């Protein structure tokens, strides 16, 4: 797996093999990210292999190792965990294979490029959006993602910081629902039971938000305002239907597309930017039409 960078400059697009390890495909968000990547790869005429680490950091390390064995020209990693991805990326570095991080950063090793949206900022944005919808007062419940994932941590942190600006809003309950729709439904059902006065919900992704909507029934979007995260197709549909008030849209397809562009350039030995920031944006009833098409 060495020498790829030396012959890189002359390599035709057709010879380029890329590997991409996605943290999990147990979430439409990443399915979209993969789609963006695959479409871009097709467009550029490069071979792209996508693997699913099933949210297991060590399986991801294995996959990166295996990419190195296959002499990939560049590797895209969507870390399960930012810290745990370090050693794997270092190993790839040693084999002189450039690595692009997408959606989540890699700590403890240098990558050729990071393509990501800022989850802390997204969390703050969610706080603002929810506060606005709630008229800056009321009781809020938070549905957290898989405990221990950086996405959950960062969004939670951003949200907590953001919501502090609204003294009349109280966070009365926080429970993880593991980024999972079914769990979102059950946890929300129970939260409503024990906290009848809830008027706002922040779900750290749309999947959980959709579960919460089911739990809240007719109240969803009306008496109880709900803000999700991701802007998945199902999430956007819910916004159109008025059951979801807002979502912090990431642009997973764009993330995937940018990551492949960066990887191809890196494989060819071209210079690339250290970071590509893909903006997050609050989607609500007013602007949902702009997103629905993408």
């Amino acid at each position: 797996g060495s020498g790829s960078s030396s012959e890189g400059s002359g390599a035709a697009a057709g010879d380029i093999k890329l590997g991409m390890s996605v943290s999990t495909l147990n979430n439409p968000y990443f399915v979209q990210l993969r789609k963006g990547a695959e479409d871009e790869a097709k467009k550029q005429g490069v071979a792209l292999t996508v693997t699913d680490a099933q949210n297991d950091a060590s399986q991801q390390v294995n996959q990166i190792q295996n990419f190195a064995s296959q002499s990939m020209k560049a590797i895209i990693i969507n870390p399960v965990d930012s810290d745990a991805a370090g050693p794997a990326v270092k190993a790839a570095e040693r084999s002189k294979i450039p690595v692009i991080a997408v959606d989540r950063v890699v700590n403890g090793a240098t990558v050729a490029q990071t393509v990501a949206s800022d989850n802390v900022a997204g969390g703050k944005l969610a706080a603002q959006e929810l506060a606005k919808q709630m008229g800056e007062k009321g009781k809020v419940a938070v549905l957290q993602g898989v405990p221990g994932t950086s996405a959950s941590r960062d969004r939670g942190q951003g949200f907590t910081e953001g919501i502090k600006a609204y003294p009349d809003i109280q966070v009365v309950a926080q429970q993880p629902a593991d980024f999972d729709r079914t769990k979102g439904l059950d946890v929300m059902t129970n939260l409503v039971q024990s906290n009848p006065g809830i008027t706002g919900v922040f779900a750290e992704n749309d999947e959980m938000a959709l579960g919460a909507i089911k739990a809240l029934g007719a109240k969803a979007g009306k008496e109880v305002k709900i803000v999700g995260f991701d802007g998945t197709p199902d999430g956007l549909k819910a916004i159109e239907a008025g059951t979801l008030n807002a979502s912090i849209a990431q642009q997973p397809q764009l993330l995937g597309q940018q990551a492949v562009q960066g990887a191809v350039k890196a494989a060819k030995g071209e210079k690339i930017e250290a970071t590509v920031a893909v903006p997050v944006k609050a989607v609500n009833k007013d602007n949902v039409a702009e997103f629905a098409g993408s």
Partner: protein
Amino acid sequence: MLVSTNVLQRKPPGRKSPAATWLGENGALVALVVLAVALSLLSGDFLTVTNLLNVGVQAAVTAILAFGATFVIITGGIDLSVGSVAALSAIVLAWTATDAGLPWPLATVIALGVGLACGLVNAALIAYGKLPPFIATLAMLGVARGLALVISQGSPIAMPEAVSHLGDTIGDYLPVPVVVMLIMGLITAVILSRTYTGRAMYAIGGNEEAARLSGINVNRQKLITYALAGLFAAVAGIVLASRLASAQPQAAAGYELDAIAAVVIGGASLSGGKGRAFGTFVGALILAVLRNGLNLLSVSAFWQQVVIGVVIALAVLLDTLRRRGTN
């Protein structure tokens, strides 16, 4: 003095009161009652009709899976594939009804057929291929999940309206999942206690060789057993998807352990020959009550896992200790 004489009095053999016998056989029920009483004392929200119905709804999918698993466990087998099969069946239903445009009743039949087929494949591997059930159904766990992902391309598919009503309520209160759970439980009880196949399951789990030499067609009965588990998994998958109005390829992942736990908490033995529908039902309720209660009490998420573990152990411990006491 009353106390000490009571203690000294030996229970006359064979003269246990029917109530005591019944309780002896339903140890998990005692645990459930203790748990429920504790929770109603700790949280005013627990003992409300709405909440109890919620618990019912939240128990439904696990319970239905667990009913199916009861058959398998009674024969001394194990089925790790039920969660995946549930997801696959739901995806097939949603996909055939939307993408393939079939009418929903047909789609439903096909989905149930898929569950049945998965069960039959498990059984064939076990009965004719002589694979250990753990391996055969672990393989199916992967295959069914993979197929669910392949068919759905990883994204949820909306359930047809008509089927989604399975997730609603009858009238204002009665949730359909609870009704389905009760019906499936009743079917399980009848199969186990009254039918040839049910009795054969106990015999096979108790001593497969003796069952065979008594003329029971062990392979055929195993086919039926795993097919039932597959069918029940399909029903569970459809109920789950109806609650969400959408079939998710990753739904019910890991539910197999919950289902098996419910069966074992309900008094079955993984070495076979023992188990009852009612016990399984209670086992599933214990798990659901526990999760619901801890949420109501706002126990922190990390501690919840600890507490659930401890309570499961205590519940079963209570049962074994009590049983040792009476023996």
